[in-house]
Structures are given as C-alpha cells and as structure tokens.
C-alpha cells in the first residue's frame, strides 16, 4: 500500500503519470487538469511571462546584461542595498526578541484581558505600508504623541518620524503582528511537560529557557524572522509616506522607474531584490524544513 510519492516512479514523464488513475479511480487526469487550468493560466500569463520579459528588459539598458551588476558597481545602489539589508536585519532581530518574550508570555499565561491584548497586537497585520507610515507620523511626527509628551515634560518637542529612527519604528510596527503570530503558533506546539520535566530535574528558570524553550521555539523564530526580513526588504509604502532622506532599495527602484524612466536599472534592481527575499525564504525552508507560514505575511 506504499504509494505516496507518484513522482518517484520509473515510467516516462507524462501528465497521466502525475494526474493518472494509478492509486484509485477517483478523478480522471482530464478532470485534474481542468481543475488546475484557471490557476495555471493566470500564473503563466500574468506572472511567469512578465517575469521573463522583465529579466530580458534589463538587456535593453545602456549597459546591456551588465546592468545586473549595477547594484554592486554603482556606489549609490550598493549603499542603498547595504542600508536596506542592515535595516531589515536590525528590525528582524529586535522584533524577534520583543515578540519572543511577549508571544511566549501570552501562550503560557491565562489572565483576563489576554485575548484583547492578542487582538490589539495583531491588529496592524494587513495595514498597508502607507498607513503604517502615517502611524509613525502620529507617534513621532510634529503633532505626535512622543512630541506632545516630551513637550509637556521637558518643554521640547522630540520629532523623529522623518529620520532613520522613524523608518525603523515603522518597520517594527508592521513586523510585530507577524512575528507575534508565528511565535505564538510555535509556542503552542511546545509541550509544557518538557519544561516541567526540566524543572523536575532541577534546572533553574534561565536554564529552562536556554535548554528547552529556545530550542523548541527556534524553528518558529527562524521562519518568522525570514518572513519579517523579506517583508522589510520589500516594504515601500512606509518609506514612501515618511519621505525620509534614507534611500531604501524599493524607493530607489521607484525613483529610477518613475522619475528617471531608467527602466533597465529599475528592472535589474527589482530582480536583485526579489532574488534576495526569495533566497532568504528558501534558505529558511531548507533550514527548518517547513514552509514559513504565509498567514503571518500580511500586507505592507
């Protein structure tokens, strides 16, 4: 009865091999193909073909195929890449630490108001980047909460929405819901008896955290970290709204495309950016062996 993986057979490749009636007579190959047809058509026409064309578009630039190297050779682009990478990595680390503690706490404790807290923390999951940018303005802009409080306390308005700190806060804002959800999902799978066992063997609290909780959470942390990183790399709306002086890569692409009509460079940079995020997510799947949970990806 062992016949799980039809793909490992020896027969010559054919559609009926993949969709055949080999195991049972439940649906014909034609039915399976009919079921897939609309989805395949959409993806082929509006994703695969454009992807190929955009990759070829790069060759139409002044430097031909060498345009692909522009992200490394051009100082402005390279600097922007490094800045974006550092920013995304930094946000990922901070979000993981904060959400690791809070997520674990929310899973392991029951108290009144808990579900309200969870609800509030995951609220911005599908806020577009622009709204997140606006939230940063509300928090740290000229009329922002931080400014008003600091004005009342020390008589000076602290405003940092339009600096790198503001962008960082914005990235953190849209990362928190995603990471919290992922951490809570893997914390729920963690068997509390493991902790009890460790404590019964005399382990102090910090050792329980180090030896049991962290290793258990690690796959969840890694995969949610990857999603967080990938989202941050591609985030555009927040930077767009804050209009800061730092050039994150998506902003550079946007400027090249719309203001400078430099389509080849914009295409090359897009592909580079897409490749980085895709590699990051694939690496995680390879490492953790499970798909990063899409549900926590959200908008932005």
């Amino acid at each position, binding site marked *: *009865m*062992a*016949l799980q993986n*039809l793909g*490992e*057979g*020896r*027969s010559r490749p054919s559609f009926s091999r993949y969709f*055949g*009636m*080999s*195991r*049972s*007579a*439940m649906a014909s190959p034609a039915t399976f193909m009919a079921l897939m047809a609309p989805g395949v058509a959409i993806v082929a026409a509006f994703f695969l073909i454009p992807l190929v064309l955009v990759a070829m578009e790069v060759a139409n630039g002044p430097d031909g195929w060498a345009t692909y190297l522009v992200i490394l050779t051009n100082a402005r682009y390279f600097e922007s890449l490094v800045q974006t990478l550092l920013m995304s990595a930094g946000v990922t680390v901070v979000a993981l630490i904060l959400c690791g503690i809070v997520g674990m706490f929310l899973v392991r404790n029951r108290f009144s108001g808990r579900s309200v807290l969870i609800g509030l923390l995951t609220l911005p999951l599908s806020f577009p980047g622009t709204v997140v940018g606006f939230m940063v303005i509300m928090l740290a802009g000229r009329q922002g909460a931080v400014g008003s409080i600091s004005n009342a306390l020390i008589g000076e308005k602290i405003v940092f929405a339009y600096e790198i700190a503001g962008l960082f806060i914005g990235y953190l804002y849209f990362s928190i819901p995603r990471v919290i959800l992922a951490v809570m999902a893997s914390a729920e799978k963690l068997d509390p008896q493991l902790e009890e066992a460790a404590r019964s063997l005399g382990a102090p609290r910090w050792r329980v955290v180090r030896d049991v909780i962290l290793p258990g959470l690690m796959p969840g942390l890694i995969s949610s970290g990857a999603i967080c990183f990938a989202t941050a790399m591609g985030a555009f709306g927040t930077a767009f709204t804050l209009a800061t002086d730092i050039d994150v890569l998506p902003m550079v692409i946007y400027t090249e495309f719309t203001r400078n009509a430099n389509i080849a460079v914009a295409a090359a940079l897009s592909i580079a950016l897409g490749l980085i995020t895709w590699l990051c997510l694939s690496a995680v799947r390879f490492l953790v062996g499970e798909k990063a949970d899409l549900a926590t990806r959200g908008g932005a």
Partner: protein
Amino acid sequence: MNATAMAQPGSQTVQTEKTGGTRIELAGCTKTFPDGTRALLPFDLTINGGETLVLLGPSGCGKTTILRLIAGLEFPDAGGKITFGADDVTSQSIEKRRVGMVFQSYALFPNMTVAENVAYGLKVQKVERRERDERVRAMLEMMHIDMLADRRIDQLSGGQRQRVALARAIALRPRVLLLDEPLTALDAKLRVTLRTEINSLLRKLGITAIYVTHDQEEAMALGDRIVVMQKGAIAQIGTPREIYRAPRSPFVADFVGASNRLDGRIEQNSLVLGDIKIGLEQIGHAVEGGPNGHHDGNTGQGAADVYFRADGLAICTPDQGQMRGRVEAISYLGEKSRLTVSGIGESAITLDVDPDFQIAIGDDIHCRFNPERLTVFGRHSNARNAAQTM
C-alpha cells in the same frame, strides 16, 4: 429471506447458496501497483448470492485490495474480470456499481446531518423527495438511530457513527455490502455488541456482504465463509469451523489462534514428539500434503510441525504425564487461568487451567496431549508454503 437460510455461521452444513443476493465472481484477477508492488497474486473468488464472506488476514495481506477491487476503487490488472450476477462490472467505476460501503473511519460527511448523510445516495440517484424521506426514516428506525436524525456527525459517539454509516450504505439497496474493518475504531465491548447487530442485520437483509477484518473472532462470528489471506494470496477458503479445526497451513493455524508450536516427526503412522508417540488416527487434523492440497490422516515420513491452542495440553498427575514443564507466568483471566510454561518445546507454551487451580510461578507441572486438539503438518508438504491459487 427464509429462516432456514439463516444457518449458524459455525455449522459444517452451512447453506451457502441463498436467494436474493447478487452473486459476485472475480476471475483471473491480479493487482500490481504502479510502483511495481504486487498487491495480489492471480486468484479466482466467488461470493454466493446472499452470502457473508469474510476476508481475514494480517495488515498488508491484500484483503482490503480485494474489497476495493469489488468496490471499483481499484481495478484489476489486464485479464482480470469481475461480474455482479450476469453484469460485467470490470471497468465500471465505483459510482456506477451500486455497492454499499462502510469504511473503517466511517467517511461520514461532516457537513451534513445524520439524515442528510443517509439521504445522500438517494439524492444522487434522484429518488423523489417523498420516497427519499420515507426510506431515510425507515433506515434510521431500523438502525435505532431515528432520534439522532438531525444531529451533526461530530456530536455522535463511535457506535452511533457506525450505525449511520451502515444505514447510509444500505439505504440505496446495493447489490453488495462492503465492510472495511468497520469495528476496528470501537472499544472491545461495543465491538461485540455491534458485531451481533451487524450479523442479524445481514441475515435479515439477505444481502451479499463482504467483510474485511484482521480479527479472527469477528471473522468466525460473522462469516458464512472465511477467506484467509497471506501476502497477496488466498491461503484458505472455508467455513469458520473448517478454518478453525482444519487449517490448511501453519500460517492459517497460527493466524486463527493455534499459537503453540512444537517440532515433531511422523514415523509409521504416528506422530513422534521426543519419547511420546501418538497414533495419527487420534490426531485431530493432520496434513501430510501433496501438490494439490491436503488429505487428512495420511501418513508420511519426516519432520512435522505440531500446532495447538491452549486446550491442546492438559495438566495431569505425574504418573499420567507425558512431559514436564515449569510455570513461568500466570495470567488470571476470570473464567480460566492461562499459564506460560517452559521446558516443553523450544519456545514457551501456553495452556489453560481452572482459575482455582493452586499453582505458583516456578512450580513444576505435568501434562499430556489432547490428541484431537492437535494439528500436524508434515514438513515436506506444500502446505507449508501456504499460499496457493484457489
């Protein structure tokens, strides 16, 4: 169905040809999975109309595959032929075959109520509304679940689900009822109750039924005939009594519960076990074995396997004893105690004693054979290799 047809499942003279049910024939069927696994070796099998046939065997023996061939969930390799009465259904898929099927996990539709589940097949067949309701009601009443009609499936107990699954399968008046280990998911006590219910239901309906199980007791209780399967082949077909008392191979003997085995020899019409000698004419069931199966009581020479259940040996006084053993373990089972005894064969032997019999672990006991409870297989017999085409 007339009452005489409801023969005792255990009786030798079971009347297998009943009226009313569809006769099913599988001819020259084999099943090879696409990865090359041979699930079923070539076989023929006939299920008489109205008969309850049990497919019995360990997991992976091919019993479920036969059921799925009959259901139309799998198709035999080229050359095989399946007929329902005069109707050749070989290439028909399951939805055309008019079979009723009860699955191990019940496969009840969670999106429908009990009544909707039972009505589903009738709806598919476009049975007119009024008649459909009537038949559903009758089915639910027959299965004693009419009070559950509007319940959701996840609100039912295992036993109730089992009844719904049965009602759903028979509501369409199928040509054959196929039951795939339907009681496995239930606890032991409920299994026995439902077994009895299914038994009387099958006899009341007079429907042809094929029942797959790995439980020997269930097979005995339900089957008009039992097919014992081993590694993709039929090891033996027979009434429960034949299977139990006259297993054709060591595999069948072992599978139907003769778990004690001793090495012996057959010499001049006698079974020789160490210094004990028992005339073959006293032996309950001896298979010398030829190329075409068995003939009881025949003689041969050479090594033999002796199989017997816990009743094949009896404790006796030292002077009557044929052999001596040492008690290794005692399980108190209520109506009897089961002893594990070493020193008689190579491996430990189990035997039953009166529960009030005073004995302790480490005691020596004397016992003697109960010759009519022994099954002897000559070792050069083909039957040792069991599986043969029927």
